[in-house]
């Protein structure tokens, strides 16, 4: 994954330590490799599965779907699996992975904290309340297939307003208050969710609630793709345009001010973008953990902390990771599906530990 043979000769310095002369991978080739990898991964996402379709059939159906070709009646079930289930699902996995990773980067800069992830703002646990109201009690039934996503998204936005109102001060949103408020709200919303699960009268509903809390892409279809994809694309564009300002913010509010960046305004913008995208993503995939926390760190280990680079690479890595996690979640114990959140951790933790130990990485000044 990472070249480790770039030991440049240099005189030892008394301040050498991890991160003294960070090894960095050039970004353009990394982006190219990651993009190819992503395309290949999505293709694998379409090709691999429990139904035992051959690659020839898969490509045929995929071609039919893309070009609008005709099918014989016997091909309909295979076509449905490939075009209506697997392909949108692989694309959604990529969108969710990219979104969670980008928002993870943004939130870590927003609260200037290495432990932050998209869920530290309490938004996802608010969304969970909405999702569980639908799963357990059939709330918002009038919305049909949209009920779950709509309810989760609306509750995410309500949580955003609550956290914002509780965290803001005369000086705007300060990092520590934001983290504390978000974490407190997280526990509050989780308590509501737990209460709902306990008071639900049938075990199957509790199981699907659990599944949702750990994240799952099993509800993916073409219908769930556009809103999430649009939200993630818009957020990525905004974040890439703001990369320079994010660098300044990461150095501290005073430095940001001296560099002509209004830290309070930037933090407000970031909060709204992060909350909205978290809501949109969580609404279609549940609360998939780990990606938003670790992919930003893994990316920084590879390319350094400059947000121009991190924001270009992290979404691609996150997308690849989640596409594969989703494939494994479907295939490993087929026909049973594993929660995505379990596999992100199983795959991600060893990757992360390995990278952290092999590459000098310091975050928080602990050299």
């Amino acid at each position, binding site marked *: 994954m990472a070249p480790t043979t770039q030991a440049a000769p240099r005189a030892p310095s008394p301040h050498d330590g991890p*991160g003294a*002369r960070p090894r960095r991978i050039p970004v353009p080739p990394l982006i190219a490799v990651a993009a190819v990898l992503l395309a290949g991964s999505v293709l694998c996402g379409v090709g691999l599965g429990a139904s035992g379709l051959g690659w020839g059939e898969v490509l045929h159906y995929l071609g039919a779907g893309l070009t609008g070709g005709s099918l014989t009646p016997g091909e309909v079930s295979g076509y449905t699996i490939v075009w209506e289930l697997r392909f949108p699902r692989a694309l959604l996995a990529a969108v969710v992975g990219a979104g969670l990773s980008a928002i993870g980067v943004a939130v870590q800069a927003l609260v200037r904290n290495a432990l932050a992830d998209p869920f530290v703002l309490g938004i996802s646990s608010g969304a969970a309340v909405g999702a569980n109201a639908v799963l357990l009690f059939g709330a918002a039934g009038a919305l049909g297939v949209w009920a779950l996503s709509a309810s989760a998204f609306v509750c995410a936005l309500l949580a955003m307003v609550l956290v914002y109102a509780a965290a803001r001060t005369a000086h705007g949103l300060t990092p520590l208050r934001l983290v504390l408020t978000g974490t407190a709200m997280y526990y509050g919303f989780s308590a509501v969710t737990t209460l709902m699960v306990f008071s639900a009268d049938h075990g199957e509903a509790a199981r699907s609630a659990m599944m949702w809390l750990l994240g799952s892409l099993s509800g993916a279809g073409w219908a769930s793709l556009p809103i999430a994809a649009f939200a993630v694309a818009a957020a990525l564009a905004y974040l890439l345009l703001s990369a320079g300002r994010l660098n300044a913010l990461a150095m501290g509010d*005073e430095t940001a001010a*001296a560099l002509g960046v209004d830290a309070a305004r930037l933090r407000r913008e970031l909060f709204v973008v992060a909350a909205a995208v978290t809501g949109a993503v969580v609404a279609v995939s549940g609360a998939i953990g780990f990606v938003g926390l670790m992919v930003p760190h893994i990316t920084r280990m590879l390319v350094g902390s*400059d947000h121009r680079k991190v924001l270009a690479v992290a979404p691609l890595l996150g997308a690849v990771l989640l596409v594969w996690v989703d494939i494994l979640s479907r295939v490993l114990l087929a026909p049973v599906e594993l929660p995505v959140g379990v596999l992100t951790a199983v795959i991600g933790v060893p990757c992360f530990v390995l990278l952290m130990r092999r590459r000098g990485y*310091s975050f928080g000044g602990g050299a």
Partner: protein
Amino acid sequence: MRIDIEDLAVEVAGHRLVHDIALTAGSGRLIGLVGPNGSGKSTLLRCVYRALRPAAGTVRLDGDDLHAMTAKEGARLLAALPQEAAGTFDFTVAEVVAMGRLPHQHGSGRPGATDNGICARALDRVGAAHLAGRGFLSLSGGEKQRVLIARALAQEPQVLVLDEPTNHLDIAQQLEVLALVRDSRLTVLTALHDLNLAAVHCDELYVIDGGRIVASGPPHDVLTPDLLAEVFAVRAHRVRHPESGAVQLLFDRLPSPAPPVTSAAPAF
């Protein structure tokens, strides 16, 4: 570029920490701000580099109101070294210096060849070109200050504001930082803890106490034993630097019991 501060007041969390400040820095002058801890030095400077807005009064650069400009416009004229921990992200030195180009960039603002050249020259000017690939967090205190000065130079400002730039540095590094600041030929406003360094390096000193300017002028005129006793609560002896002739100070504690000049301590 000339700085004129008029009737400036700054509030933090509803408390007015700095009152009625009047300060003038002629173009290219090095102005020192001295005062005991908690006297309002940092608050005043934070307002000058726009981390705080004035509650009253103005900061003018060549006559233009600094706080009426956009943040970017202001940052193209005035750079600062705040007194702030360097953050948690391990940027390389080159990346830190490149941030100085931010006020000059539009939109996505990818740094171009011009920006890179300016940054390289800035690092060169502070003698830190060899550090470009290093992680900023791994540098020594003196190296960090040099890199931050390079970032400020990369901003291509007319005015440089520094909040105690010599803190936590050894004496050689302190002298080096002040020499770099002097060599920048910018108009400089700097808070300094060390009165002897201030006396040697500053063209003029402003003494701040309790949020108000209590004295100003050339170091020789300002650093009198009376003022030092009143503001810093020390007994000072003035001597001349044998080479430069600058005024230097030797300190003792005030004779005990301390004559309460300004404090309203209850009598026993």
